């Protein structure tokens, strides 16, 4: 997989043979993918935008959660750069804090769902047989479900009936983790399928067989020999999942079953959108536009990485 890169390293005659790692090559290929590079840049800007909440809040000297019913729907001003929302709160700061929540949920739910998907995919692909067909039936079943209504039912579940204390059930943290968990519980099927297929193609390779012959156990083989060799499609799938999760979070919060105000998220900032359309159209645009830009950038980033990681996809 390494390139004996004498042609690219001619500037250093002393190292006549310089090994170029496979990741170096992938990075090089990714850099040539304009869409991928542009979206990486956009995503960095989005992250910086969200993190700018802290310095901006202290610079302007306002509290992002302070409501002021006398100045609802104010236009942009020196103090409120994008104006104020229905509670008289600063729209720009809420967009920044809301973005932190939305991005964090996107990452966390992807990691948790991804762990479910990777483990089930590895197990199904490696052991095969009955277990495999059972797990794949489960995947088919989950894919066939109308997700959104089910997510709503799960989000409506009363945590106190599950034995949690009433104090915890109504806290902001419970609302946050609930969204992460219910999305992760459903959004692992794509990763599971992909990991299973990749495992099937790798598990009969010679180095895996050699390791098995020298006595390596099943889970050692999966973790040490199979997983590292199928990591690239997993990275791509994770990237695409982040975008999908952000969309799920936003629609759940928009419908009132996700992040609960006063904590802002890009979705719940639009929850009274039908009213906004007539009173303050700009406020109906900003949060959705940020979701749109972020998700399209993650999708294009995933596309770019796929091109970089898979030399055959050169079309």
């Amino acid at each position: 997989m390494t390139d004996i890169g004498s042609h690219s390293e001619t500037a250093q005659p002393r190292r006549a043979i310089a090994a170029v790692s496979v990741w170096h090559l992938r990075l090089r290929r990714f850099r040539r993918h304009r869409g991928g590079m542009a979206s990486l840049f956009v995503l960095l800007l989005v992250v910086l935008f969200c993190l700018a909440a802290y310095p901006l809040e202290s610079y302007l000297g306002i509290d992002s959660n302070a409501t002021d019913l006398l100045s609802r729907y104010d236009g942009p001003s020196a103090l409120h750069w994008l104006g104020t929302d229905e509670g008289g709160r600063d729209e720009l700061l809420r967009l920044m804090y809301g973005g932190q929540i939305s991005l964090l949920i996107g990452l966390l739910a992807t990691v948790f769902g991804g762990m479910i998907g990777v483990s089930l995919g590895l197990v199904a692909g490696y052991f095969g047989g009955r277990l495999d067909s059972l797990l794949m039936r489960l995947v088919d079943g989950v894919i066939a479900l109308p997700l959104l209504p089910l997510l709503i039912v799960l989000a409506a579940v009363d945590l106190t009936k599950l034995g949690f204390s009433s104090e915890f059930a109504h806290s902001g943290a419970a609302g946050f983790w609930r969204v992460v968990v219910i999305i992760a519980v459903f959004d692992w099927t794509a990763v599971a399928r992909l990991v299973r297929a990749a495992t099937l193609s790798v598990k009969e390779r010679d180095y895996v067989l050699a390791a098995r012959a020298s006595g390596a156990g099943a889970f050692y083989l999966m973790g040490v020999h199979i997983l590292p060799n199928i990591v690239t499609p997993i990275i791509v799938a994770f990237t695409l999942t982040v975008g999908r999760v952000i969309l799920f979070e936003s629609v759940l919060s928009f419908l009132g079953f996700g992040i609960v105000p006063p904590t802002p998220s890009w979705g719940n900032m639009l929850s009274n959108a039908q009213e906004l359309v007539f009173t303050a159209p700009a406020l109906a645009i900003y949060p959705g536009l940020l979701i749109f830009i972020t998700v399209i950038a993650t999708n294009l980033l995933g596309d770019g990485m796929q091109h970089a990681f898979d030399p055959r996809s050169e079309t």
Partner: protein
Amino acid sequence: MGAFVARRMFETLIVLFVMSFVVYGLIGLMPGDPIDIMAASTPGVTPEVVAKLKAIYGLDQPLLLRYGRWLIAALQGDFGFSRTHSQPVVEVLAPALWQTCKLMLISFALSVVASLVLGVASALKPAGWVDALVSLFAFAGISVPVFWLALVLILTFAVGLHWLPASGMSNVGDGGLMDQIRHLALPVLTLTLASAGQFTRYVRSAMIETLRMDFVRTARAKGAGALRVIVTHALRNALIPVVTVMALSFGTLFSGALVTETMFAQQGMGKMIYDSILSNDYNLALTGLLFATLITLLANLGADLAYGWLDPRISLK
């Protein structure tokens, strides 16, 4: 073939059965129960009365027993009474189901047509400018939050241009066909744009792959016209995987319908499920969810059958 259909029907029933139990259990975990809600809105009710009411409606029984009773009634077509509509659930559900079918089927048909045209156009010259534009459109379609797309369309066509109504299903006192179509236009447009992106990507990649096949080159070499090669030779073969993934996306389409109906105040299944969960109308929520699952399962079954019918190389067993 017959055995295959029978087995798949059986599997569909199993999934539906499992779902009914899971959803029944989940609904029981939603805040309050019907009697608590009744008690909360009736001041001065004593705990003894509440306990007695619960005993009358069997709510003090264990979950499995209640589920068993519900299942027996449901199998006889009795899905209970909707608390908020004060009507049997079936009577609330039927018109909503019809409304959703209209929305979903029209949008599905339109996005299939759009994706076929766009997907084929971009596959003919990968990396050309048409392909770049179409890919951008496809990525936008996948990435846009459906509720926000609806908002933007309302802002543009209803608030800005005053062309179409922003919500509702018909104007009071009108309700003619033209009026209904005008009210359906924006919801259909929203759902079509939201699903066409994904479909276009399927068509594009399947078409690119098929156009590289030997039989396409042979057809060209034998002098078949460009249109004939593209439509009769390539597209027919490219459609096989595409049909499956399209039918599999019915669940996603239903999620989109829920959002669209809520945004445009259309009294369909999606909005009905959403409202029933908001207002703790358990029977309605449960039955609505099961019917939504049934629709997507039937679409999947249809996909499997279409797969075998389109591709004679596959024998269904």
